Structure formats: C-alpha cells, structure tokens
C-alpha cells in the first residue's frame, strides 16, 4: 500500500544561513528501511523543486531511525534577505509529510494517524 510519509515519520526543519535542514524521523524502527530506501536525496530534491534551489545532502542516523536532509538554497538567500513570509523555513518540514511511500499492508495497524488514513 502507498501512504503519506506523515503516517510513518515526523519531521522538523532548522535554519542556518540559506540552508535548511529537515530531519525525517521514523515513528517505529521497522518503518525506517522503507524511508531509507525510497526517500533518497534525489527524490527529496525533486519534491522541493523550485523552492530548494541548491543541492540536497542526506545523512543517515541509523541508531535513531532518522534521516537528515540538508537543503542548500532553501531560504531565499538567507533568513534576513528572504522575501518569503516564512523567513526561517520553519514550515518547510511539513511539505515532505505528503511524500508517498510504498509499504507492506501488514504495517497498516502500526501507522500513526489511523483516523486520517485514506
């Protein structure tokens, strides 16, 4: 089955200059391999196309079942120069929650936000 990332992981964005880091943290260790396999730096960059203008690096923290994406050119030139209402990109981490991940149906009962599952 295909589900939105929000059922598998939670995310947070942080800012440094013109770079945003967006962490993607699996709710359960058993979800992590599907994130690691499918949410590549390339797909992440394609998902944020037009908004993230520079390269995206992905760091893996297996011990915490988490991925950390470092997106360059994500903050309109930097927090103070940005013309975006959300200068710090604090809301950027919400966008990736809509990324679709293919998982085995057997995981369905373990997913978060059951009431919001399609």
């Amino acid at each position, binding site marked *: 089955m295909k589900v939105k990332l929000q059922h598998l992981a939670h995310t947070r964005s942080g800012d440094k200059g013109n770079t945003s880091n967006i962490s993607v943290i699996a709710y359960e260790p058993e979800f992590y391999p599907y994130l690691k396999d499918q949410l590549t730096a390339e797909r992440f960059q394609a998902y944020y196309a037009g*908004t993230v203008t520079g390269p995206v*690096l992905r760091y893996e923290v297996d011990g915490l079942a*988490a991925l*950390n994406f470092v997106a360059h050119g994500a903050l309109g030139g930097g927090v*103070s120069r940005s013309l975006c209402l959300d200068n710090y990109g604090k809301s950027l981490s919400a966008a990736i929650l809509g990324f679709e991940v293919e998982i085995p149906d057997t995981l369905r009962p373990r997913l978060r936000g059951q009431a919001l599952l399609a």
Partner: protein
Amino acid sequence: MNLKQPLRIGAGSAWWGDRVEPAILSAEQGDLDYLCFETMAEATISAAQVRARRDPSFPGYDTYLDDRMRGVLPGCLRRGTKIISNQGWINPDGAAERIVHWLRHFGARGVKVASVNGSLITDRVLELTDTILENGRPTSTLTPSLVSAEVYLGAEPIVAALKQGAQIVVTGRVADPSIFMAPMMVEFGWDALDHAKLGAGNGLGHLMECGAQVTGGYFSDPGFKDVPDPWNFGFPIAEVQPDGSAVLTKVSGTGGAVNLQTVKEQLLYEVHDPANYITPDVVVDFTTTRLEQVGPDRVHVSGIGGKPRTPTLKVSIGCTEGFIGEDMFFYAGPGALRRAQLAKRILEERFRIVKLDAEEVRIDFLGLNAIHGAMSPKDQPEPYEIAVRVAARTKTREEAIKVGREVDGMAVSGVGHTGKRVPHQDRTREIIGVWSSLVPRERVQPSLKFFES
C-alpha cells in the same frame, strides 16, 4: 557539590522573544543548580549595533533583561541557583551592572557577577579573516557594508568566571550549547581538551538550547503528535551525571512532553552532518546517541560522542544589505482567486510605471503559495479567502517604500472587493545580512570583569 546527586541545569530562554513564566517556574520549583539563558539569533548583535547607533539610550543588552531577572532572581537566590546568560549582546558590562541593580533590589549583597567580553572583533575582522564561507569571496569585499563581526566563543571563559567565584555570568556572543555545558565542566572537573566528555556535554547543551523545543514546543501535529496542555509548556531541565549522560525532564504539572520524539527532533535541529557538529569546544557526534524513556517526561540520554575541537572559531559578520518593502491585502468569497490574480497583474504593471528598482520582487497568494513557494501543488481547490502578499528587496529605503505606496493605491484604484489594512504600520525594514568566516582560535582572547552587589 555532592556528586552523588546529578547536576541540575535548566533552560531559561531559547531566544530573545521567549516566554518568561516557564523560566520563573523552573527557578521556583526546578531545584536547579544552574539556570541558563540563550537570547540571541544570528542577526541579534548586528541589529543591536544598528539600534545603538540610532538610539543612544539603548543599553545594548537583552531588552527583556529586566523582565527575566526580576522574574527568576528571587527563586535563584533562595535556592542558590547560579545563572549563565548571553543577554549581554553588545554590552555585557552594562548587563552585569543592571543585574547587580536587581540583586540589590532583592536585598542580595555580595553576590559576584561576571561579564565575558572579547567576542566582538568588528574593528579587526578583516585582518583576522580571509574568506567568506558561504561564497568563497574575500571578507574584504564586505568592508563598505560591515556592521558587526563577532566570534562564537566557547565555554572556557564562562568556566573561568565560575571558578573565580561568579554566581552569575553574563556574556556576549557564545555558542549556544557552551552556555549549558560550562557548569558541567566546572562541577565535574572536565578538561577543555577532553573531547569525549565535552562531546557529551555539548550534545546535551544542544538539546537544551532551544528550550521548549525539546519539551513539546514546535512539535504538535494534531492526530499524529499530540501533547497535553500545549499552552503551558515547561522549559527543559537536565539531570547530568559526571560521565556526561543525563535525564532530560521538566517541572511536573506543566504541559508538553519529554519523549523520544521530542528529543530526536531537537537532536537534529539545525544540525547538518550529525557525525560532525562543530562547536567552539568540540566536534559533537550525535550518531552514537542512545535514548531511553525512563519515566513520564523523562528521557535518558547517553552515548553522544566527541572529537577534538577545530583550530578555528566561527565569526559571524553582519552587513547592511538594503531594504525590504512589504504589505498585503485580501480577497474573499466566490472568485477571490481571480480577483487576486488581476491584482497581481495590476501591481506588476504599476511597479513598471513607477520604475521600482528591486533586486527581487515576490507577489504571492497567501492561502495558496506564499509559504512553500514554487513547489506548492498546482491543482489545489480555490480557497474561500486569499491574501495577496507583496515583497521587494531594494538597495534604498526610497525604493522599498514604493511597495506600500502601490498597495495603498489598490484601495480606491484597484479591484472590486479588495480588503485592505489601515497603513499605519511601517512597511519597510532594513536588511542585515549575515556572513560567516573562520578565525584562528589563538587570535581571540576573551576577558572577564567582575561586579558585586
């Protein structure tokens, strides 16, 4: 200190505008050995410099210093809690004197307050640095627009102040995690070159430095991540052991949560390579971190690693870079988007007619694409309400003012059913861009000054 008990360190603020009540609560009920305040963002020092130039009465330290100290000093004095704070901004001595004023106000005499100076290197930044990290150009290219340059100091000057008897230490720019680690170095006798211990300590400092962001703030997502009473967060408290492991918790009865999710989110917050988080004191390795929920709102943190510190310190260089003009107006009801689109077209033509000289112009539809920008889905249902948000970045204030003036024109010369705010607020602001560079560690010598109440 009796080392059979863990060292209790509390966070008192995570930024300049943070709430004050949770800090008071921690001071009153947190049984703290140390209460630590972080009150700066990247551009805080530069903004303070600009303000000081224009407003001679601006004292140059945290504008909420009075609120914070008036609130926490009674509890801290009663418990014997020491305070470490970067509220000094561009005037740590002035902040220390003001704290002495509040100490006397509360009848506390003979309390030693230390100020840490030495982070401001504006007058010699061009001789100490070579290259701008963000673009590889020489730092000398920033000469015409330079406002302020400050080095991120580490924990060592704070440690020195505490060892010389200071009960309150107030600093200028210091790396955020160092503020929280300094007490561990003093109380546990950690050496400044013991990178294993300092890695653990700085990692804990990183978890604490954003305050409520580890106790349930910047976290709630209804239906997925819910926390109790999200209107009443407690600030974090670390119960630290001499080996650098700790339990993170908060004052009981407060809202929010300390759990594996809140801690993991904060662990990676503003981190790039999790194996190499560079601070003035040590390079932290978060990849070996072990987390365990050991009770309600209690997470045990261990295993954070450290590598030897780098030979350089980071310098933050603030520069004036022009102005931003911005404003917004509104549409609602059937056809709101069509009217917003016509308004956008009108503004684009108007900016041509008045020859707006801008480096970048953005006209967004708030409700559709103003936050996530170009990546926003193209096939969204039309919203019932929409705001047209206009912003331009310009070299001069005169150009930036044109944005608001043209939005004014939309009131009687615009589209039907245009909702507009009364233009009483200032719709321009000055940009202080922040660049980074590196300075050899040995070229920066922090200095201490002591005051007594």
